[in-house]
């Protein structure tokens, strides 16, 4: 049953990805991305990552995507028109990404995965385990990340302020 859930979520994610790339209107791209994120969060849940599942929905789908929507609202809708100036871009891109995909698939063949050190799954992925990790072993990256967010916030405010004088 869970495998079926996985495949449905995976199919939705792929469809959403195609939608991101294919839609001409940016609002539709954003919404497709939301679909992708929700699907991925379901998959996270399947993988015993409860906290990450919740954070994905709250932060990613809930905050970042909303931010994108606000920007679209600010800038107004825009449609990409016609062909671009770079004639070979499309063909070359297709070539490269197909090769990339092929390589990635090829990498997967015959891979032997390492077995886990301990197989205790009862504590794995719970909020407590995340908390333990974040506040003891990985306290330093955690604090740095908070500073990073501060910097981003200040930067965003500064960059998008209204300029009175001509710059």
């Amino acid at each position, binding site marked *: 049953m869970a495998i079926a859930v996985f495949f449905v979520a995976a199919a939705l994610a792929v469809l959403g990805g195609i939608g991101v790339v294919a839609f001409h209107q940016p609002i539709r791209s954003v919404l497709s991305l939301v679909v992708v994120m929700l699907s991925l969060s379901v998959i996270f849940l399947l993988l015993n990552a409860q906290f990450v599942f919740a954070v994905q929905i709250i932060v990613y789908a809930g905050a970042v995507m909303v931010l994108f929507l606000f920007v679209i609202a600010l800038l107004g809708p825009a449609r990409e028109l016609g062909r*671009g*100036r*770079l004639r070979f*871009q499309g063909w*070359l*891109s297709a070539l*490269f*990404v197909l*090769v*990339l995909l092929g*390589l*990635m698939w*090829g*990498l997967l063949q015959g891979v032997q995965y390492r077995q886990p050190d301990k197989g205790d799954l009862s504590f794995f992925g719970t909020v407590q385990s995340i908390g333990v990790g974040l506040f003891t072993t990985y306290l330093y990256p955690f604090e740095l990340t908070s500073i990073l967010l501060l910097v981003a916030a200040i930067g965003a405010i500064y960059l998008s302020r209204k300029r009175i004088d001509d710059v």
Partner: protein
Amino acid sequence: MSNQTLALLILLFPAAGAILLAGRGWRLPRIFTVIVGPGVVWASFVATLALLLAKASGDFTYWTWIKSGTFEVPFNLLIDNLSIFMCLVITGVGGLIVTYSVGYMEHEDDPSYARFFCYMDVFIFSMLLLVLAGNFVFLIVGWAMVGLSSYLLIGFWYQRHSAVVAARKAFVMNVIGDVGMILGTFVLFMTYQQATFQGVFGRLNGCPRGVGQLCLLPFTSGDTFNLELVGFLFLVGAVAKSAQLPLHTWLPDAMEGPTPVSALIHAATMVTAGVYLVGRMHPIFDVATYAHNAVAIIGAITALFAATIAIVQVDIKRVLAYSTMSQIGYMFLAVGIGAYTAGFFHLLSHAFFKALLFMAAGNVIHAMHDEQDMRKYGGLWNQMRPTAITFLVGSLSLVGVIPFVGFFSKEQILGLAFSKPDDNMVHVLWGVGFATALITGFYTGRMWWLSFWGKPSPQRPVEHPHAPRLVMMVPVAILAILATVGGFIQTTAIGIGPSTVTDFLASAVGSQRWEGGGAEIAVTFLTMILAAGLFAWALYSRPWSAYAPWAQRLLERKYYFDEIYDWAFARPTDWVAGFALRDIERPVIDAAVVDTGLLARAGAGGLSLTQSGYFRNYVLVFVGGAVVAAVILIVRANS
């Protein structure tokens, strides 16, 4: 104070003077230059006198300059009677001339005035270094610096094109001599592994590595071949510095410099450096007989050659220049036949009367507002009596009339040449010297009568020439007195009397090894009478050029030496230089540099095409790079 310190002070005084005048002299009032410029030369003179009175002698080493394996060059000064003698001449006569030039150069502005005395002090320093040096390296240093000073002083009035050209000519010819000196030193070092005089002379008669082994080239006996080579190489140096044939063409042109310069450098001191060299190297020349004979032959030929050219000169300074060339030929003749002390005595007396002649001529030139053509003088005997008298003293000395000093020195040389036993070549050279003495009488007389006698020429630039200032007259007078009485310190020419110079220098150069007899004295007086007779006859002689115009032309063109040198050396060098510029420098070397720049630019131009400005291009390149990296990884993982 010790002799060692005194010897160093002799060198340091003019050096200090030069540095002071080069650095600050032109910003300070003129009185400063007037005191420092000549003052340091007189200070050196006093120091030299002190050494003389203390009968100093020794090889003083002050510090070791180079020490590299067996090659050791100390900074040492060799004090013996020869070096003291030369120092006395340089500082004494030099001091008089530098004092004289305080007045002669008065029309210069302050910076040029200080520059002149700075250069003069540099010259005095280098000449002193040359004669005091105790090893070959510093001898060459002094030698080259003297050449430099000559260049600076000949080209003193550098705004004049002719002066600059003359200075360059002098310097180039001196450099040829420098090369000879350096090569000679190399040969000596290779033979003896010594760079000092004491070291080389001490080892002279035995090649230390053994006969037949590497002393430059294989030879059969002793070091004679090497020493002959050294002798000829040093001869090249001496010939260049002393303006003897064939490296003589720079001396007449050097008269472009101010008259004190001509007096000091091209009469009394620098051009005598060649004579000093042969004297100092007498242990080598005593062994190298071919080179030694060459010295005498070159000297005699130059003496005659220069005297003949002097007959047709119209510029008073050029007459004196050729006269200098001729008299130095006498000195070369003397040291070339082994009569070293006679040669140095003539050096001393020539310093007296030639400096006197130049300075007196300078008085005339100064009064005539820089007019040097003798045909425009005339009648100065009445208008510039003191100068005329001094000039007469110098002229009679030059001709060799008793009792002036020139008689005693020149006739001694001729007498010794005449009476040297068992040497026919020297007797031939005596004949050459005899003829030269007669011609000397003639051209000197012509110079004297043209300038000072008769009526003033209609082309005279100045009607009533002013008398020279005291500072210009006193040195001239002093030299006139010295020229008159100086002869009496060595009167061996007439067979009786003191021989101070010979005795003094015997310890350094050895005395000549033969004595003349009565025939020698008779010949001496005969020479004097004939020469004086020609001096007098020059007043009345008709222009002889009417009989042989080709001879006149030949002499005026100085035997076409300048033209020959131009065709043989100057033009080919010019052509080679032009060829190198057009066909090597520009296409190859310049092109290499310029093309490198162009290449860089082209490369940059090509590479800048990748900066298209399109974001998506850049991302494509990223992805492409990632693909390539992945391919490489996989290939490596699988192989």
